[in-house]
């Protein structure tokens, strides 16, 4: 019994040792094809698989869907993306405008100012639901995936292009308009 297990132990140890030494010597080679779309990708099982990331990058798909980007001029501030987001990483503050502000590139009428349009990329889970619901297709996923920062706050991307003074002005405009409307009603 003990004799048999001893022999078995030695045999399996030798099997394992030959396996590791094979890998040790095949480390002279490097995996050549990094593109998973290539046919031979799974044939090259030998050699080092490490990709030295910042120096070497793996190819990404043409329509890669990584970090979010917003073309704020096309945004009608409908808040649909913030509602769709499962992790609530989009914060939008809208200011109503007395009259139409302008038109987006696809012809939708803009009636709201985006006082705040923040996306917290540290929270984002890259599901892409916000891009699906966007009526003007202004929020899209880009092929950028490796923004590195030492400050966590830098991962909150701000897309609003309004200055605080402008925000204040627009708010005052709307309060004034509201007050005028209220006054007209009470008359």
């Amino acid at each position: 019994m003990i004799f048999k297990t001893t022999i078995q132990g030695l045999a399996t140890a030798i099997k394992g040792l030959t396996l590791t030494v094979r890998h040790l010597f095949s480390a002279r080679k490097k995996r050549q094809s990094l593109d998973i779309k290539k046919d031979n990708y799974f044939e090259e099982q030998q050699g080092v698989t490490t990709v030295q990331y910042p120096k070497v990058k793996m190819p990404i798909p043409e329509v890669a869907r990584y970090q979010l980007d917003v073309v704020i001029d096309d945004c009608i501030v409908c808040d649909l993306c913030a509602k769709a987001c499962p992790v609530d990483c989009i914060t939008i503050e809208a200011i109503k405008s007395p009259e139409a502000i302008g038109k987006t590139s696809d012809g939708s009428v803009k009636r709201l100012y985006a006082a705040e349009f923040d996306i917290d990329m540290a929270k984002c889970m890259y599901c892409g639901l916000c891009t699906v619901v966007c009526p003007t297709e202004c929020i899209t996923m880009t092929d950028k995936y490796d923004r590195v920062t030492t400050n966590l706050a830098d991962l909150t991307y701000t897309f609003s292009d309004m200055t605080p003074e402008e925000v204040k002005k627009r708010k005052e405009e709307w309060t004034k308009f509201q007050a005028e409307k209220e006054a007209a009603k009470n008359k």
Partner: protein
Amino acid sequence: MDSLILNILTPVAIFLFIALFTLFAVYAERKIAGFVQDRLGPMETGKYGLLQTFADILKLLQKEFISPSASDKILFALAPILIFVAVFVGYSVIPWGPNLIPSNTHTGLFFIMAVVSIDAIGILMAGWGSNNKYSLLGSIRAIAQMISYELPVGLSLIAAVMITQTLNLNEIAFNQGLLSSKEIYFLGFWKVNEIGGIFGWNIFQAPHLMVSYAIFFIASLAECNRAPFDIPEAESELIGGFHTEYGGIRFAFLFLAEYAMMFLVAMLGVVIFLGAWNSPLPNIGPAKLADWTTGPVWGVFWTLIKSLFIVAVQIWIRWTLPRFRADQLMTLCWKILIPLAFVCMAISGLWRILIMI
């Protein structure tokens, strides 16, 4: 006066060697681990990560001394010193080349076995002094393991010593090659005093010494707490075992002792079984390969090459085999290695009586 300077220079040289070897071995270990696992290992510090271990040691030297408030301060501070000294003293009786030996004592082998066992006390001091359950568990395991495995190491060495008939490591080294003072036979029948080379090594002087060497090698892995016998350290279950609480230069010394121990047991195995500083190349007719490759410089060269090869095998085994369970460890020691070592010892006696006469 000259001998005094020599007596100071030798330990310093050996210490420098150990330090350099440790830096090199840690780098080699990480690289081999990487290659075995299809990774690259350290690559960023210097070309191919060559300066990685120098950066590591610089970091360790800069760190502050931290002793846990509930620890036994004296034991905690003494343990790394004791562990390192126990291993370091072992180097004093090991020959590097023909008559190139720090201390030529008649009981060299016995001395090594005695001082290396002190290592176990140091580890217990480290574990107890840390006052940490993981450290204590690690050191208890270490003691159980090191004391158990001292037996197969000792028995396999006795089997070799019965053939060599001396405990003096310098003589053992001499009697394995061209410069032998007594007749040496390859497997007991072929006189190889003139041929030398690999045929003169102790491991080939009697066939059962190969088994003895295998036992010695396996048991010495356990002696220096290397995988697959690393349950005293067991990173995945005990954090770091007895050295959990250590940091900075104290940790560096524990690390140094660990790698020094690796080299020490590799070198001891080389001296006793694998021909010490004798060349592995035999004289073949007019090509006097053994004559050409014997001498003080060649001696150091062969000792280093053989020992480093054994260290490489230790590293290779570490990255292949998984850790033993405590009961498997004891089963292997008490039920397999010790009986086998006893059989080898008995064969040594018979060999001595019946074949070497």
